[in-house]
């Protein structure tokens, strides 16, 4: 076929007639939830349309009385300006009352500023930065599922207690990697472990980790701490396997969806921390099963997806209590109502939300099963140890949140 101008213009004109506008239903008693996350980049499986599905499940299961609920979604492409642009438009013009998920710390923090400025509800379940309940906290923000402090405490401290008492870090050379290494070091040393050394690699753009891994192996440390995320973590784990690194691998930030991508023959033996595992008890299994029909791919939920479900459920309970009109008028009012009630859902069981916006649940240190141990698809984790909700998270006084009275 010849690509002519006429053909291109004709098809563009035809495409323009397609109905693009979504119906605008903005009754005063409609609660609108916006799921904002990465749907085309490295975090599309850790959040993406799976988070959207989890939020939709929560809405479908919540028998809302006196108000209706609508869920929409968009891709922030991991760019803070795009995320901030969408968030402003959602809050200002599209009648969105609550923004949910938002992985990638830079985007998450950008939206925190907007939520604070406009007094709108913001439930973050996807980002790692502990600043959301610390320096950049706001009375209308809740942080769910995990943060850097909790990961470092669990993977760092508990690994030492289970025998991994000498560490070597391979760290991405940028702020996130540095922070993660510093906080992990604190917990490893606090638990009586030793840091034998560390190596920083250039970020981004490093794909060959062999020299760093061999340096780690030569240090004689028992544990290799990977202070990186996403594709870098996956690459360093794969290469550690190829080079026969015999150390115990501790991935500081990793999800069950990443384990699935790697496969058990590569990921087996790895330790990592999550606050949710689908195969934990009857309730989590039931939740994961109910979620399946809505998922774009047959994936089991990770802690971000579970967080989207739990946060949406809890938010709707709060709306039910104070009324849709009050919840729409003030994000702080809705979030205060959420903090006042204990949380209760199938994903996390019973929990609570602290004054600074941190949702408190147990955290678990998991070891990934080897192919021989695994009995079926998604049977991936053995639980090594756990922290209770009152010890897993950063103490309230240490966060530096401005409205927390010490």
């Amino acid at each position: 076929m010849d690509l002519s101008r006429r053909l291109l213009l004709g098809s563009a004109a035809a495409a323009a007639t397609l109905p693009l506008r979504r119906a605008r239903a903005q009754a005063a008693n409609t609660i609108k939830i916006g799921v904002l996350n990465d749907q085309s980049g490295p975090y599309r499986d850790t959040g993406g349309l799976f988070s959207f599905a989890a939020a939709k499940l929560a809405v479908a299961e919540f028998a809302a009385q006196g108000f209706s609920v609508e869920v929409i979604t968009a891709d922030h492409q991991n760019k803070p300006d795009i995320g901030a642009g969408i968030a402003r438009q959602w809050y200002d013009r599209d009648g969105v009352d609550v923004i949910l998920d938002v992985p990638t710390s830079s985007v998450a923090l950008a939206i925190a500023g907007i939520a604070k400025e406009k007094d709108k509800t913001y439930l973050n379940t996807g980002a790692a930065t502990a600043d959301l309940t610390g320096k950049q906290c706001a009375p209308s923000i809740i942080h769910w599922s995990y943060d850097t402090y909790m990961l470092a405490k669990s993977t760092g401290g508990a690994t030492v207690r289970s025998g991994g008492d000498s560490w070597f870090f391979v760290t991405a050379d940028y702020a996130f990697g540095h922070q993660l290494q510093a906080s992990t070091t604190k917990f490893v040393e606090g638990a009586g472990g030793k840091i034998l050394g560390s190596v920083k690699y250039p970020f981004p753009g490093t794909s060959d980790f062999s020299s760093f891994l061999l340096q780690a192996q030569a240090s004689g440390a028992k544990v290799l701490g990977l202070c990186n995320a996403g594709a870098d973590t996956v690459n360093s784990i794969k290469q550690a396997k190829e080079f026969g690194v015999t150390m115990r691998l501790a991935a500081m930030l990793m999800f069950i969806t990443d384990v699935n991508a790697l496969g058990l023959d590569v990921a087996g033996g790895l330790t990592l921390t999550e606050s949710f595992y689908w195969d934990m008890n009857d309730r989590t299994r039931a939740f994961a099963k109910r979620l399946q029909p809505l998922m774009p791919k047959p994936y089991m939920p990770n802690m971000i997806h579970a967080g989207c479900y739990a946060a949406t459920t809890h938010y709707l309970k709060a709306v039910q209590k104070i009324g849709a009109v009050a919840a729409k008028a003030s994000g702080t009012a809705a979030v205060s109502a959420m903090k006042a009630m204990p949380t209760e859902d199938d994903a996390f069981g019973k929990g609570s939300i602290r004054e600074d916006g941190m949702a408190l649940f147990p955290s678990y240190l998991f070891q990934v099963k080897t192919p021989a141990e695994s009995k079926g698809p998604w049977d991936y984790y053995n639980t090594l140890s756990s922290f209770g909700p009152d010890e897993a998270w950063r103490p309230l006084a240490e966060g530096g949140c401005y409205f927390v009275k010490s």
Partner: protein
Amino acid sequence: MLGFSRAQAIAFVVMLALIGAAPFLLYPVFVMKVLCFALFACAFNLLIGFAGLLSLGHAAYFGMGSYIAAYAAKSWGVSAEVAILLGGLVGGAIGLVFGWLAIRRQGIYFAMITLALAQMIYFFCLEAAFTGGEDGIQQVPRVALLGLLDTHSDMTLYWVVAGVFLAGFLLIHRIVHSPFGQVLTAIRENEPRAISLGYRVDDYKLLAFVLSAFLAGIAGGAKSQVFGIATLTDVHWAMGGEVVLMTLLGGIGTIFGPVLGALVFGSLETYLAQFGDWVTVSQGAIFIACVVAFRRGIVGEIAHKLKLGL
């Protein structure tokens, strides 16, 4: 009028009317973003369209402008116009150093040198303490203009940004149609002949480079005021690629083309966000369509059809 031809004057009036009406019809923050990108694309077009220099590293000046303006507004509390101007000056200063190095080579070598230098700026921004690493500078306050005009309202800030854009746009128009701009065009068309006529070609190219970097810095500074953030996205090489795409789409070497290109590009990025993957797919498809069938870009094709200079 202001050195516009009749067709250009009509197009300019239409553009003014659209800028005036846009915030009432569309979301003001979105229009402000388009205006920032439009100024950025116009600055880039000054180099590629009129001096024939393809810089792949323009994100460096845009991004540093954004960082400096954000830092100045947040840490020193300077007012909006000072922050944006500082962004432009730093962009221009970096442009002076990088341009001085890069203009010694031509064609693909020039493009690669600008890209390499811009990557150095990227790494600097990633590692430097004041930029906040990959979190960027967050929650930049919108500081009052001249200490008087409160820009917290989107509409007030919109008129400020529109003013900055129009000033930049008219400056570029003036540059292009000045004797200096004529010499640039001569260099683009035939550099050896320009040399043989006695022009110090390198000085002209360097000045064009610095002006372009300065205006890119202004655009970056304005963007940081609009969104209240400055992040690595602005200095990433992909931003340098996007500005090429905007300019190409609108029409290289036309005055109005980059503005339209920025509008189309910004609309795609914003309105396709709900479709996930389709943003990048559609950008790629448009690029291909443009290269295959509309090599002069949208405005370029229209101008060619109507036999006008737009």
